[in-house]
């Protein structure tokens, strides 16, 4: 069997590929930021909240971690529609991704929070810091620094997993590819191109998060050691 590769017919579509890649990056960036906030709040709630909050968070995390992302995306998409609220496919995609990555973030951050020794809290308490101040300065910051590599991997995964939202026709990279391959009948080539673009995006996301880490974690930048 010989297959004649033909990438030439895809050339015309580069603006669309670019558009799709850009949307994928945007979806991922927004979901990462919101998912991080949601996950961190959940981790705090699970570590330090009243029993009903702990239960709620634990249930949320287990449900998300034990169901497929695709199903979650559909449930969010059709669920919102059923409630009679009009949101775009992109917005539904962001909501689903945030809900998903929030659960994973929660578990990662929780491990970080637990790594902060009780004696640190006691010292801060004895210095007169309030509970929110202790959380911010003494717990969350070193906790995030410690789990930052794990979070980075998680957010790269999120970017890749966002391809699933093509199923509700969010106009991200994979959806664009689906359309292009049905226009050109060059499926193999199309997905090779898309694969390469995803590879490049992963690289971009990693570099971005790495630079962000360097900017935020001054100690790490100066000493190069893990906390």
């Amino acid at each position, binding site marked *: 069997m010989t297959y004649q590769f033909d990438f030439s017919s895809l050339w015309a579509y580069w603006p669309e590929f670019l558009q799709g890649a850009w949307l994928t990056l945007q979806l991922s960036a927004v979901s990462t930021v919101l998912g991080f906030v949601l996950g961190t709040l959940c981790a705090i709630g699970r570590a330090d909240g009243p029993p009903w909050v702990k239960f709620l968070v634990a249930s949320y995390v287990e449900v998300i971690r034990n169901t497929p992302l695709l199903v979650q995306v559909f449930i969010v998409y059709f669920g919102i529609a059923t409630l009679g609220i009009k949101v775009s496919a992109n917005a539904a995609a962001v909501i689903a991704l945030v809900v998903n990555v929030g659960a994973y973030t929660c578990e990662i951050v929780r491990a970080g929070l637990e790594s902060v020794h009780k*004696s*640190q809290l*006691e*010292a*801060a*308490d*004895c*210095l*007169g*810091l*309030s509970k929110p*101040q202790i959380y911010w*300065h*003494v717990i969350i*910051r*070193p906790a995030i*620094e410690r789990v930052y590599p794990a979070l980075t991997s998680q957010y790269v995964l999120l970017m890749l997993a966002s391809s699933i939202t093509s199923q509700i026709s969010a106009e991200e990279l994979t959806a664009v590819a689906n359309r292009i391959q049905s226009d050109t009948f060059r499926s193999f080539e199309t997905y090779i191109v898309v694969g390469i673009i995803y590879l490049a995006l992963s690289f971009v996301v990693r570099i971005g998060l790495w630079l962000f880490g360097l900017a935020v*974690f001054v*100690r790490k930048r*100066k*000493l190069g*050691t893990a*906390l």
Partner: protein
Amino acid sequence: MSAVVKLSNVYKSFGTNKVLDGVSFEVGRGEVAAVIGQSGSGKSTALRCINALETIDGGTIDVCGHAVHDEKLDRRSLRRDVGIVFQSYNLFPHLTAEQNIMLAPSCVKKVSKAEARDLAKDVLARVGLAEKAGHYPEQLSGGQQQRVAIARSLAMQPKLMLFDEVTSALDPQLTGEVLKVMEDLARGGMTMILVTHEMAFARKVASQVVYMHKGKVWETGPGAMLDSPRTPELASFVGSGL
């Protein structure tokens, strides 16, 4: 001399373990009290009760005008008056020495960054570490870390300093540099309560030695009491060279 700290008949149990069994002593302004005793005799617990890290079951504790035993105690205002240093330093690992020190003045007293930095410089100089301001805890020796921890407490300008075996984790040379800082503090008129195993230091610096045994104040007096114990327990404790 007005009492800065006064414990009267303090009781504290953990479950069925009676740890403080009617402890009373007082420490006046500018006094240095050294609390000594066997492991498990309740020294750390007594110190922690003074700083409201533990709640007591009976008796009263007055610290700088705060009724520590009172349920309505304002813990944060108590902590503005009391500094405490632990055996394990407990510096914040992600912050430099200077940032460790600046944190509480900025957060609690709301002083400006510039003021907090000046304050940090000042207290670091007092513990002989002016040139280490930008170092992270992991870049400092144990003795240096402990001195930064002391400086961090001093930056809050407490009226009373508590020290719980602050040199126990250090080798003799590093112990010396930390003890020197504490001696300077004592000479500067700071009211201090220190739990220590350093008998020579207690004898030299303390204006009052409190020997605890089985949750009670077994014997108390000036440093010289270590040379002529009245109770066989203190005699054997001192004799054992602890």
